[in-house]
């Protein structure tokens, strides 16, 4: 009961803050429209030449539209910027105030990020959701088992991304350049997560290797569940792999944060 009250209060405070920062929020959404650029680009490419995905299914036409609109939409639901926030709080010492509360700081950080999801989701749904329904409805999954797995996968994608943000943010205990490291990671993430290039278009060996790396589980998997026509078994198998990564990354985040905490200098007044 206490946990529910706490989560509710954290979420409400985060939601009110999100409303106060709504202009910044729209700017952030504008900064994540790369999939829409990729949509235009890949449409042009696939009009010239039919591409065949690793699953043997052609990737072109409506599928391109569905894939990149879904990518844009799902990125709004599972994105996180915790690394920048943690880095700032460690550097200016305001983390100290979080540490004085009898709640692990991961929880407020998570709810602060999640509180932005409804607003971001609503904006993205109004645009990308409508476009998906109008131009690419046929590409969207209707399989009940897959549809059931989808919200779980989106949540796990958030956990994976959030945990990686916690890990990179915690590097600020050791280095002043932790956000630069996060930027470098994101550059790789954009390539291998399915954000810019669908994983199915990678050479088979590389696509298989991505199974053992976190990128696809941060974004590609929920997008694929929505538009790739997977059956229930395949979908839940991917979600299970995603869950393993989520647990592993969250454990890594705890380890990095608590190890770093011993070095915390709580600088400033």
């Amino acid at each position, binding site marked *: 009961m*206490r946990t529910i*009250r*706490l989560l*509710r*209060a*954290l979420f*409400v*405070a985060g939601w*009110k*803050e999100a409303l*106060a*920062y709504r202009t910044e929020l729209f700017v952030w959404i504008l900064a994540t429209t790369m999939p829409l650029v990729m949509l235009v680009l890949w449409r042009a490419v696939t009009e010239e030449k039919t591409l065949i995905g690793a699953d043997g299914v052609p990737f072109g036409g409506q599928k391109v539209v569905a894939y990149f609109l879904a990518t844009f939409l799902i990125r709004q639901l599972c994105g996180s910027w915790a690394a920048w926030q943690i880095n700032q709080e460690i550097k200016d*010492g*305001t983390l*100290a*105030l979080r*540490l*004085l*509360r*009898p*709640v692990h700081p991961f929880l407020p950080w998570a709810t602060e990020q999640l509180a932005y999801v409804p607003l971001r989701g609503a904006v993205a749904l109004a645009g990308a959701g409508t476009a998906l329904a109008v131009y690419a409805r046929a590409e969207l999954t209707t399989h009940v088992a897959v549809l059931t797995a989808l919200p779980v996968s989106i949540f796990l994608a958030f956990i994976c991304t959030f945990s990686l943000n916690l890990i990179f943010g915690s590097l600020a205990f050791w280095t002043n350049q932790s956000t630069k490291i996060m930027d470098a990671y994101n550059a790789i993430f954009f390539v291998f997560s399915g954000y810019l290039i669908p994983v199915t278009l990678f050479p088979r060996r590389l696509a298989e290797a991505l199974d053992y790396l976190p990128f696809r589980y941060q974004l590609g998997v929920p997008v694929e569940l929505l538009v790739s026509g997977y059956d229930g078994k395949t979908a839940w198998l991917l979600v299970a792999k995603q869950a393993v990564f989520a647990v592993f990354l969250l454990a890594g985040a705890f380890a990095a944060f608590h190890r770093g905490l*011993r070095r*915390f*200098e*709580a600088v*400033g*007044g």
Partner: protein
Amino acid sequence: MIVVDHLAKRFSVAKKSEGRFALFRSIFAREYATIDAVADVSFTVAPGERVGFLGPNGAGKTTTLKMLAGLLVPTAGTVRVGEFRPEDRDHAFLREIALVLGQKQQLIWDLPPEETFVLQKALFDLDDRFYREALERLVTLLAIGDAMKRPTRQLSLGERMKCELCCALLHGPKYLFLDEPTVGLDVAMEEAVRSFVKQYNEETGATLLLTSHYMADVEALCPRIVVIDGGRVVWDGDREELVRRVRPVKTITLRFSQAVTRSSVEDLAAGHLCEPADGELREVTIEVPELEVKERLQLLLAALPVKDLVVADPPFERVLQDLLNAPGDRNGKEL
């Protein structure tokens, strides 16, 4: 009870290298220097006591407070606050303490303070009745009825500080660590914060440890002071006793009904005239050994056209300065 025993905290700080290729070298082999922010600090604070924690900049006051609040892990020594070891950051411990950092804020910037208060209620799992009563009491004591409904960013510094105090005390902490709580406030607001803190201590029996650069805070609130310098305790004892031992004088301030010559005062002051000025004087301050106050006053009153006079302890800043400049062992218990 707070027990601090041979506490030390050492920081490692990157050294800035000199020379043409220093930046390049520092990428591969960065040099570090160690700084003993707190070298060896021991003291105890009884439940309900109000203790001023003083020292020059960089003496280790805030570092010690942060170790007491569990924010920093000591390099050596031990700290116990009640039954807890702060560095364990036990949730039960965090419910018993509050640390107010005058230059940091926990209020949510774009929302009214009352939103942060509600969040604080959930974070500390306060029941409705306790929260209502605590909030009502604090809002009345601090007079922040209006301020708590306006966005934090629109509040004055004083209003914000009072709301910070309210937020920090909502859960009824038994141990209150205040670091420069009146920094940047105007005189009236300083006084309001001081009287609030004193009242809170008297009503709840909370233990108070205060650091401040404003000696008026310490004089108003703390009968006992601990002074640290260079990370070590140089005085631990009664504030008035410190004044008696380090600067055993009284200051006599005289205002005259008509200007007097400097030489006429100088003879009577017997070399204790403070802030010497040339020409004619309408006001002077004289420092006189405690035992000579009566005799000296009689002489001054008889010889000069005194309109008004004040006898007081010497300024505490000066006492502290004398203590810090004094050589040798200055510990209050052994001096």
